[in-house]
């Protein structure tokens, strides 16, 4: 029903912006690198960015960058990872569907062990139905959104325990 070609949105997002999968330190490093670019382009003395529950501060000092990254408290949708688990957040604005069509079984349930690339849900945006696949293996601990409800960018959809894979 939903060929691989229906996922251009998702692919573009993934290619461009790794930071949307939280907890992954490499992505954070990439984000810091891109912020350093901003710092250099703009000639700023200092730059602080708070996103995804982390405050990053960069300070220019005699041509030396100091980089500080620290988690911050936040009440936004992209809240910090839950204890014993990692949150999987929505990469887009759209409608969240747990199954491929009404009456069909859900892609995942609490307790389902998923492999990398396994479909977790459908995210519908502009009448395009995008399969959303797992980027890490693990066990689904919680499903955080009701079926057929609207989700925004960065909103936590699932809680997954990577150690449970």
């Amino acid at each position, binding site marked *: 029903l939903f060929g691989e070609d229906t996922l251009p*949105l998702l692919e573009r*997002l993934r290619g*461009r*912006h790794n*930071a*949307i999968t939280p907890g992954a330190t490499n992505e954070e490093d990439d984000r810091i690198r891109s912020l350093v670019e*901003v710092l250099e382009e*703009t*000639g*700023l003395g*200092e*730059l*602080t*960015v*708070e*996103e*995804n529950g982390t405050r990053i501060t960069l300070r220019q000092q005699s041509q030396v960058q100091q980089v500080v990254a620290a988690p911050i408290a936040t009440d*936004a*949708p*992209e809240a910090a990872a839950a204890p014993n688990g990692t949150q999987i957040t929505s990469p*887009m*604005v*759209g*409608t969240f569907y747990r199954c491929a069509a009404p009456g069909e079984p859900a892609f995942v349930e609490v307790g389902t062990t998923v492999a990398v690339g396994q479909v977790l849900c459908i995210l519908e*945006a*502009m*009448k395009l139905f995008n399969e959303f696949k797992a980027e890490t293996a693990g066990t689904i601990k919680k499903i955080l959104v009701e079926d057929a409800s*609207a*989700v*925004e*960018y*960065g*909103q936590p959809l699932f809680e997954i325990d990577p150690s449970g894979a």
Partner: protein
Amino acid sequence: MLRRCLVANRGEIAVRIIRACRELGIESVAVYSTADKDAMHVRLADRAVQIGPPAAADSYLRVDQLVSAALTTDCDSIHPGYGFLAESTELVKACAEHDLVWIGPSAEVIETMGDKAVAKDTMRNAGLPLVPGSAGRLSGPEEAAIVAEEAGYPVLLKAAAGGGGKGMRLVHGPDEVRDGFLAASTEAEAAFGDAGMYLEKAVINAHHIEIQVMGDGEGGGLILGERECSIQRRHQKLIEESPSPFLADATLETMKAAGVAALKALKYSGAGTIEFLVGEDQSFYFMEMNTRLQVEHPVTEQVAGYDLVQAQLLVAGGEGVPPWDGETRGHVIEFRINAEDPMHGFRPAPGRIEKFRPPLGPGIRIDTFVEDGATVPPFYDSMIAKLIVTAPTREAALNRAARALDEFVIEGIPTTIPLLREIVDEPTFRAGRYTTTYIDEVGPSLVTLGEA
């Protein structure tokens, strides 16, 4: 009447649109990147949807995310504001496909006016005066030389797809044409993915004066008066005022008639601005038409006593153009307050605003999205507030501006306030005898531009 409107923008213009929606009883849905989570427009809207990470290309410029946000929140319309996707036919078309009302003119008009060469052809046909120059795109440096000879030097080479000064060259004589063309063309290719160039006579000691229109979509509408926008720095407007201290009444009347002709030719719908280059001798030439709300729209709102953003929403909602008594009153000046450091080459100065105390009292309008503790993110435009002063006369407006800029307290980041304050008392500006070269000529004598 519209019911619920997605405001596809951020900053002061998102706040402005949300206020207009609220005053008309239209619900508003804000969108925001993760960098704008705590922004004023998010707080003031009835609802808000997070649409992406800080980079505009991944959030405010994403047609798919914006349309999806409108659909999932049951909006019936999208207001694009200015900048970002305000002149994106892609978004206009996506709106049509998903039964969303686009608050702006048709995709066709936007496309026509978006290509400067096509825009000029269209306006020439409508009877508007144009700067002598090439009839559309030039085939190459050879044609440029021929056309330049006809128009008379100096001439300007400009990118067909351009804007903001990129892909532009001033050429003083025949020997400079070839190099100028190739350099500008290369720059245009890099900046816009389109190397196309056109050429026109350079109007010396020129004024940039624009008129505000509000079209009914059927060829009629209102011409709401002019704005003098000649105080610019690197093609960015700093100060706009109305009435123009330079324009003769008779010229204004002719310019308004040109506006009527343009509305008719385009069957223009909603708010638009027709920009003219005006020479020392009051001759004027069509430059371009902006098919959207402008940053400086409050100047016209104040002088005309007319709410342009409400009018946009009403026109798009099928209510027609709200009536206007046709009178302008008093004198209005807008000052753009940017988070930039005028003492250090106007470099952007994003950061946290520790204290924000706008001036208040008579004749003061402040359009802003910042407040105490607000963060100006480094990812977007540096304009943080507009100060709009209204008074019975130009002199009274200038004195009020001086008072207001003196009162204005912004702590935490440097702003353009000191520069604006200095200009208010600068004799040439005070006398109203400035042209588009004002900052180049007078700038070096100003303390705030001394190091720039």
